[in-house]
């Protein structure tokens, strides 16, 4: 019984290897620096970098739910984009009702209106997530092929229902007064809303990290990602956990939808499937199931998309595909491959 002499296997990792392990995190500043060199003008660079970070944060919000759902239950939801669109439409509808508040000069009323819109959107998309999980995903759990097909079908139906409810036209809405306009730093103009988006995204990322690292539900999610069977054998109903995560992911997609809508000030029913392309790229880059990877992937895609849109507008989308290909060549499972017991 004297086993204390056995040390855990924490080998000293050589410096070069440590560098390689940290490399994914360093990719973001490296890309930003590369952007500075390519763009030349620090002012344009600053504007584009803030825009890129804002875009990245919004994609992260939308993608995070998808990646956790995949990690936990091996379910990839091709209908995730529908939640983005529905969230945006609900948010816009609420903001339109609260037009008195959004146009008022009072910052408090402005933000309050946005808050209510966000909560409404998250509530609706969360409930929609519940229905989606029960009706669409649950019957085909464990069968990838059917999952892809059925969730794709769910996306089509949800997008069409948006047409039925909100009509065929795109909606326009201007941002509340408090979120309009820009700060000017030197020659660089930084839109207020982008800073807000960065703030919300960062806060959400930190909150998510905290939940995953320090709460029991978070621990269960992480344990479930690695070995769901063992979580059940310990007495936890993983299906219920999964439902909670699925609904949270859907609600986050709804939040992302409102934020994206306010960013573009125009929304269409098929915005979901357009954004899904970016979301998929981000999730693949980060490593399916990894929240950290998703965050870094989202920032990389956001920055790269904005830099290339400035430098060579025609290849903006192609550049993100190229990034994905490059990263898959380097790490075939994405930046942070997720450990699976089976």
């Amino acid at each position, binding site marked *: 019984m004297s086993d204390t002499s056995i040390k855990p*296997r924490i080998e000293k990792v050589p410096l070069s290897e440590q560098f390689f392990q940290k490399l994914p995190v360093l990719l973001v500043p490296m890309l930003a620096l590369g952007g500075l060199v390519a763009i030349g003008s620090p002012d344009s660079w600053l504007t584009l970098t803030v825009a890129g970070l804002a875009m990245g944060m919004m994609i992260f919000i939308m993608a995070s739910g998808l990646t956790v759902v995949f990690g936990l239950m091996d379910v990839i939801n091709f209908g995730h984009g529908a939640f983005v669109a529905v969230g945006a439409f609900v948010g816009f509808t609420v903001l339109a009702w609260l037009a008195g508040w959004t146009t008022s000069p009072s910052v408090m009323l402005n933000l309050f209106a946005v808050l209510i819109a966000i909560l409404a959107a998250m509530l609706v998309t969360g409930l929609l997530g519940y229905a989606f999980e029960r009706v669409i995903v649950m019957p085909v759990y464990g069968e990838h092929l059917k999952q892809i097909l059925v969730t794709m079908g769910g996306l089509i139906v949800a997008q069409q229902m948006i047409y039925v409810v909100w009509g065929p036209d795109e909606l326009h809405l201007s941002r509340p007064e408090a979120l309009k306009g820009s700060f000017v730093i030197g020659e660089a103009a930084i839109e207020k809303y982008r800073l807000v988006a960065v703030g919300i995204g960062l806060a959400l990322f930190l909150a998510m990290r905290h939940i995953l690292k320090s709460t029991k539900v978070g621990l269960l999610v992480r344990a479930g990602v690695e070995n769901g069977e063992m979580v*059940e*054998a310990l007495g936890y109903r993983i299906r219920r956990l999964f439902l909670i995560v699925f609904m949270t992911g859907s609600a986050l997609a709804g939040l992302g939808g409102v934020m994206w809508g306010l960013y573009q000030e125009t929304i269409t029913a098929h915005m979901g499937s357009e954004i899904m392309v970016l979301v998929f790229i981000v999730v693949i880059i980060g490593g399916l199931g990894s929240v950290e990877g998703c965050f870094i992937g989202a920032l990389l895609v956001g920055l790269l998309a904005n830099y290339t849109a400035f430098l060579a507008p025609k290849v903006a989308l192609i550049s993100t595909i190229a990034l994905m290909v490059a990263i898959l060549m380097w790490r075939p499972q994405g930046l942070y491959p997720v450990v699976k017991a089976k």
Partner: protein
Amino acid sequence: MMTDTLLSLSGVHTHIGPYHILQGVDLDVPKGGVTVLLGRNGAGKTTTLRTIMGLWKASQGDVRFGDHVISRLDTPEISRRGIAFVPEDMGIFTDLTVAENMLLAAANGPMDQKRLAWIKDLFPPIGTFWNSSAGTLSGGQKQMLAVARAIIEPRRLILIDEPTKGLAPAIINSMTDALRELKNTDTTILLVEQNFTMASSVGDTVAVMDDGRIIHAGSMKELAEDADLQEQLMGLSLEAHQ
């Protein structure tokens, strides 16, 4: 001799995909003490444990635990009735720390500190590496953590699948000691084991499986003393451990 039966399988069949693994298993696990399940590789020992745990569903037959049939229940439900499972691959959450692994294992609320102290005494590495990532533990330490998780809350039955597989002799000894100590508490253990030396040193009763059925059941002492019977029942599995 304790004759109360805690767990009994009657005519249990289990299919995995197209394979018919358990072909009518009848097994009684008496209350208290250690029942060892022996048999060569592929005989269906692991499948038996997983079927009891509800991880694979029995297609026929019943599993009774105490007074209730549990073979229709889901795994979490079975776990909450007081059965713990230590799988062959140990099922450690390597992404979590030792402390977090233990915290999740205490599914019914905060850990009982007295019990935890007893476990740390039983398996000193648990205390030593309390805040380390479980992924950095050695194989033996992971096995200790796996057993520790199973006993952090009082359980009526613990299913353990080959706890000595691939471990160094010194660690096998400490694992054997721990199982002996567990016997003194009010816990019943169903142990799958290929290592006959260990099996015979902790086992009270024994069942031998082959081809998805129980081919022998009786007391461990009898089997340990009868070399012919050993030879006849499991020539293969004895060779395997030498």
